[in-house]
C-alpha cells in the first residue's frame, strides 16, 4: 500500500468533519507552497511557460492565477 493509498483509506474516517477539515487544510497548504515557489521561480528568471510545464498546467492558467501575487 502506497503512502497516498494509506492516507486515502484513513481519510474514509467515520467523522466527515475531520476529513473535510483536513482536505481544506491540505488545499491551503498546497496553494501556499505553489504561490511561494512560483514567486521564487519568477525571481530566478523562469518563464510562465516553464512554470506552467513544471506544475502541469497551461502557461495562461498559471499566469492568470499568479501574476497579481508576484512581488
Amino acid at each position, binding site marked *: 500500500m502506497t503512502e497516498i493509498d*494509506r*492516507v486515502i*483509506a*484513513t*481519510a474514509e*474516517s467515520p*467523522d466527515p*468533519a*475531520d*476529513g473535510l*477539515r*483536513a*482536505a481544506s*487544510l*491540505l488545499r*491551503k*497548504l498546497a*496553494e*501556499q507552497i505553489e*504561490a*511561494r515557489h512560483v514567486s521564487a521561480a519568477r525571481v530566478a528568471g523562469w518563464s510562465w511557460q516553464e512554470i506552467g510545464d513544471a506544475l502541469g498546467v497551461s502557461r495562461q492558467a498559471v499566469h492568470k492565477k499568479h501574476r*497579481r*501575487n508576484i*512581488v
Partner: protein
Amino acid sequence: MFERFSREARRAVTAAVEEAERRGDPSVGTDHLLIGVIGSAAPGSDLIGASVETLREARAEMDQAALAATGVDADLLVEPVPNRRRGHLPFTGGAKQVLEDTLREAIGMGSRRLESEHIVIALTLRPLRDPAIRLLEQAGLSPDGIRTDLIQSMRRSA
C-alpha cells in the same frame, strides 16, 4: 445592508476579514466573524469569555486532530501565510446567513441599529456543525450560555 451596522459591528466584520486574510483562508467564515468580534473588542464580546489567542489555539487543536484522524502527518501544518491576493475575500454561505440573522435579531429585539451584540447572538444560533459553534465548543464554551448572558446584559442596560 452594512449602512445599518453600528460602527463597532462594522469594525468586527472588518476584523473578521482581516483574520481570514492573515491566515490565508480562501473565504470569510463564521469562525472568522467570531474572532473578529472578539479581536475588535466589540460590545458584547467580553461575555463570550475567550480571547482571540484562546480561539486561535482551539482552532489549531482542531486542525491537528483533523489531520491526525485522516492519517496525515500533523507537522505538515505550516505557519499561516497572509493572503496576498488582491480584492475582497468572499463570505461563506454560513457567514452571509449570520449577517442576515443579525438583522433579524436586531429587528426582533426592537433595535434600529445592528449592533455587535446581535452578531454574537446570530453566531450562537448557528447549527451544530457550523465552524463558529465548533470553535466555541472546542474552547469549552457554551453557545447557549453566551446568548443567555448577552440577552440578560442587554436587557439590563436597555
